[in-house]
């Protein structure tokens, strides 16, 4: 009974992932995209920078580079900087399915005796989750990697990361 409950719980967690999608491997080349909405093209990545053109929803762009929340784009409406969230990236090249079975093999999971590749590219099958057994050894190992607050602070300082204050966002706040 308890096991069933836990299995269901896991199923739930997996069915409702924070970020969920399947891996695709894409040939690296120039990225393209299209405008999600009408927005200005700026000469520099700043709100107050001079506007050199404007995109209409659906306009195709070529993405050259990125700076924070801005993308440097080339389009028939002009070239310059557009707010990142106004652009939807399109795949460049042909997307191919990530071979889950091969990946599982490479990662050693195929040796566990569990069926890993029957559902194509799925990395974690529903069945696997349902029958998942508590792994105390792995959990202890996972917990052993934990770092203290002070260690994290030191790590941040090494990367020159500086903490700053900022309020949480409201749902529809502009």
């Amino acid at each position, binding site marked *: 009974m308890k096991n*069933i409950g836990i*299995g*269901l719980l*896991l*199923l739930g*967690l*997996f*069915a*409702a*992932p*924070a*970020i*969920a*999608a*399947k*891996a*695709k491997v894409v040939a690296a080349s120039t990225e393209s995209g299209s405008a*999600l909405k009408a927005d200005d093209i700026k000469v520099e990545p*700043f709100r107050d920078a001079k506007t050199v053109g404007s995109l209409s929803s659906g306009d195709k762009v070529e993405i050259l580079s990125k700076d*924070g*929340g801005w993308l440097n784009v080339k389009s028939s409406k002009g070239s310059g900087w557009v*707010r990142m*969230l*106004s652009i*939807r990236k399109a795949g460049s090249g042909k997307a191919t399915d990530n071979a889950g079975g091969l*990946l*599982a093999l490479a*990662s*050693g*999971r195929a040796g566990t005796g569990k069926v890993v590749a029957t*559902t194509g590219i*799925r*990395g*974690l099958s529903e069945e696997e*989750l349902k029958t998942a*057994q*508590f*792994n*105390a050894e*792995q*959990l202890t190992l996972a*917990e052993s990697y*934990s*770092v*203290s*607050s002070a260690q*994290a*602070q030191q*790590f*941040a300082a090494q*990367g020159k*990361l500086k903490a*700053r204050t*900022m309020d*949480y*966002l409201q*749902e*529809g*706040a*502009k």
Partner: protein
Amino acid sequence: MKILFHSLFVLLMCGAFTTSSALDFGQQLRDKLKEQLPEKVRGVAEALGETSQADEIAIGRQIAGNLLGAAPLVNDAGLQQYVNRVGRWVANQSERPDLPWHFGVIESSDVNAFAAPGGYVFVTRGLYALLQNEAELAGVLAHEVGHVIRKHHLKILQKSRLLDIGSQALAKQVSNNDKVQKLIGSGAEITARSLDQNAEFEADRVAVVLTARAGYDAFGLPSVLQQIGHYAADDSNVTLLFKTHPHPDARLQKLDVAMGDRFDTVKGLTLAKRLYRVKP
């Protein structure tokens, strides 16, 4: 009867997460059950309203142990230590820096990330492999930290446990339970359809702020969403997943509205060079 409640539980779990309407519904249900439950059970149901931090961690630990049973850690100590440093630094920016935070990368080709109550956060190898820089990792971890600090999973558990107690009590006590059953049924339906979406949007909003507070480029998470959004669209393997979840495009649009121009001048670091490269 038992089967029915199990499937409701599954629906609830699949829907996961909470919204204001879910809370309202939970309250409605709680009130309804209170009316109909015997005195003793009523006390238990009320006690479920709050979970101590120790219980929260114990629940999360159990979930994490099971998850690791399904997909073990990637066998790379350097990687695991690295994600713990990044994750802890991000979690330190939240209002729950004192939780015993644990982060890990697990063996799965899925592109996914998970959070369990009490501070357990895992990303899959598949998702990690997509990351371009440390700010993106920070953004992904921050989204999961958001689920933990807003207790999204814990709230679902509390609700489902309440349902369990309700089923037992009702099976024993009440012959005329149509009302409650109806209430639960429609409620689970709502949960399965949309409740998770608002929790996801909320975790996204928390994530960009925590990422920025930590000194990173706040657009780490949006970058990852942009990347996975396109490739997922034509993949039949995520049809069901996306049916119950907001599409990355929808999440980006929500973030766009919520972020407005507040982040236009907030510059942060991406630390692309420091991103730990995992061996294939």
